């Protein structure tokens, strides 16, 4: 998942987490640098104090055998340190027991700090080389202690264990509190997103809630609601248009049919037969336009068994008059789905009419209702192979090279609007089978 696709809440959480991490790292680094500086200053001061003590002892007791000098040497030894009194030529006048040469070569500098790197088991030493006052030739006192001086380490360790560790959980707690505050602040947005997600052809009247929305977000939500108002108006005007269209077309058709019915001429009977095709085409065109306005509420429940019974009963007179038969196979219990009754009825009517146009006289059209759909099968020549491909083109005319034909495209679009699909197959024993598949019933909203 890219950063761009994260939700606003996740983006802010990620950003705040990075800020918290940087804050922790920066503060740790700052503290480390500050402590190192303080450590060095303290170390230098201590070394300088030891060197001055040694200078005083050496001035009064050059052999360093007196009580005070001995105490000083013992103290240096206890702290793991080493010392040496060195002439300007590098000769050692006095030193720790284990030392027989200068810690560092002497130089002209009056005070010089040095670092002796550790190796194998020998620890790194940090030391001072200080020129002794009033000696001629010039003498130097050199004292060095292990770099990790116990005093500083203890101070640092105590600081970290007692105080500094609180910083990390404190930052984490702060981060958590910020996230909770953020979640609370963005709650109206999440609710609006959830509401928007529920809006579909089946709920065009739903609007996003504006109450309790923060002022700055309210403008966006209001604009979305206004856009939904305009879309709904468009939807409804299309529905109205298709209703007018149906009315405008049907009255002249009724006049033509009535005139034909009155005529005793043999040609009128032929025209009546041809007129059935025109009538069906007009009816399908009106149905096709209507699909643009298809909507239903999630609470609109229909029983597929009931629709199957009504559609079969509606078309039975024409089916029988054409010498075909129809049968309905349905389970005893109702098969309830969310959907628009009129549209499912029209889709099924189209499938049955399609079967009627293709099944030979004397055969039966079978309508089967099952758990999540309706199948209409006939004994006709079956569908052209190109219609059986998974992605059949919708909406192109029957006579064209591709496309499902107007009737089947109405069914397919109706099913897509219901979250389902139209599946076409040819039966092994011959004949075509069309299935209106509805999505498996989700839990009620």
């Amino acid at each position, binding site marked *: 998942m890219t950063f761009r696709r994260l939700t606003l809440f996740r983006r802010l959480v990620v950003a705040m987490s990075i800020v918290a991490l940087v804050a922790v790292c920066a503060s740790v680094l700052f503290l480390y640098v500050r402590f190192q500086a303080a450590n060095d200053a303290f170390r230098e001061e201590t070394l300088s104090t030891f060197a001055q003590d040694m200078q005083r002892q050496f001035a009064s007791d050059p052999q360093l055998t007196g009580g005070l000098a001995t105490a000083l040497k013992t103290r240096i030894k206890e702290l793991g340190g080493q010392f040496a009194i060195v002439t300007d030529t590098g000769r050692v006048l006095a030193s720790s027991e284990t030392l027989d040469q200068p810690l560092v070569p002497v130089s002209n500098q009056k005070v010089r700090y040095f670092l002796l790197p550790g190796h194998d088991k020998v620890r790194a030493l940090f030391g001072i080389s200080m020129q002794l006052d009033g000696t001629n030739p010039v003498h130097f006192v050199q004292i060095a202690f292990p770099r990790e001086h116990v005093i500083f380490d203890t101070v640092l360790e105590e600081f970290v264990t007692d105080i500094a560790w609180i910083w990390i959980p404190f930052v984490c707690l702060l981060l958590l509190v910020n996230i909770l505050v953020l979640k609370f602040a963005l709650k109206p947005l999440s609710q609006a997103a959830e509401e928007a997600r529920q809006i579909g052809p089946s709920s065009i009247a739903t609007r996003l809630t504006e109450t309790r929305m923060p002022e700055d977000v309210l403008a966006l939500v209001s604009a979305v609601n206004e856009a939904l108002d305009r879309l709904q108006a468009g939807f409804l005007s299309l529905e109205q248009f298709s209703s007018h269209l149906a009315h405008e077309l049907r009255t002249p058709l*009724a006049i033509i*049919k009535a005139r034909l019915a*009155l005529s005793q001429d043999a040609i009128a009977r032929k025209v009546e037969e041809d007129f059935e095709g025109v009538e069906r085409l007009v009816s399908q065109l009106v149905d096709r336009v209507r699909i643009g306005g298809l909507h239903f509420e999630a609470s609109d429940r229909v029983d597929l068994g009931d629709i199957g*019974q009504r559609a*079969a009963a509606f078309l039975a*007179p024409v089916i029988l008059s054409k010498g075909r038969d129809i049968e309905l196979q349905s389970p005893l219990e109702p098969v309830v789905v969310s959907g628009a009754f009129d549209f499912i009825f029209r889709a099924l009517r189209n499938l049955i009419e399609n079967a009627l146009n293709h099944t030979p006289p004397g055969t039966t059209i079978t309508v089967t209702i099952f758990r999540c759909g309706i199948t209409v099968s006939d004994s006709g020549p079956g569908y052209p192979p190109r219609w059986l491909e998974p992605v059949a083109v919708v909406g192109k005319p029957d006579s064209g090279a591709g496309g499902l034909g107007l009737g089947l495209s109405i069914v397919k679009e109706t099913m897509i609007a219901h979250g389902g699909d139209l599946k076409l197959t040819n039966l092994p024993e011959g004949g075509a089978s069309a299935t209106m598949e509805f999505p498996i019933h989700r839990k009620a909203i």
Partner: protein
Amino acid sequence: MRVLLVEDNAKLASLTSEAMRSHGFAVDWVSSASDAEEAMSTISYEAVILDLGLPDRDGLSLLEPVRRRAPSTPILILTARDAASSIIDALDSGADDYLVKPFVMGVLISRVRALMRRPALRHDTILSERNVHLDLSQHVAKVGETELQLSRREFAALELFLRRFNRVLSKGEVEESIYGFGEELSSNAVEVLIHRLRKKLQAAGAAIDIHNMRGVGYMLTEGRS
């Protein structure tokens, strides 16, 4: 048989009137709801054919006054509105039947006839379709001049189908009409009854037949040649 036709399209109205007159109906045509109300206030019609899209107001608004004035007059709605909701509205408002334009003239005529056969309206007691006649008062069924020997239930079933000629009746509807509440019924009682009735009609040379569509229901139609 005087029928009122309320239709705003003059051409359709004149063609429909002509067709109905040729089938023995006396048709009065009006083109608006107000004219229809006036006509009904002076003449008692045996049936009303009503278009919903009228120029002065919606045809549905006529249903209530018509029902008040003549509760038993059957009303058939003739309209271009084919949505189930429109059909339900019309039937709930008091219409007896509904036909969507463009319609087959023969269907309109047989529907109007069927409405006029309803028991509440029917003063004469003979139901006829093709060569089959049912005398309700004498309890006699005839095919041509041949009298049919029908059981009480077969007679009731034939009457039911004659009243619903060319209309599908579900098995449940037949059961409800023929058998009383609480009567013990075997699962195939209706099938057996219809089978016997069909055999008797066929044997007598009836020009009508009861067609059984499995799972859909039964329909009385013209017999197949």
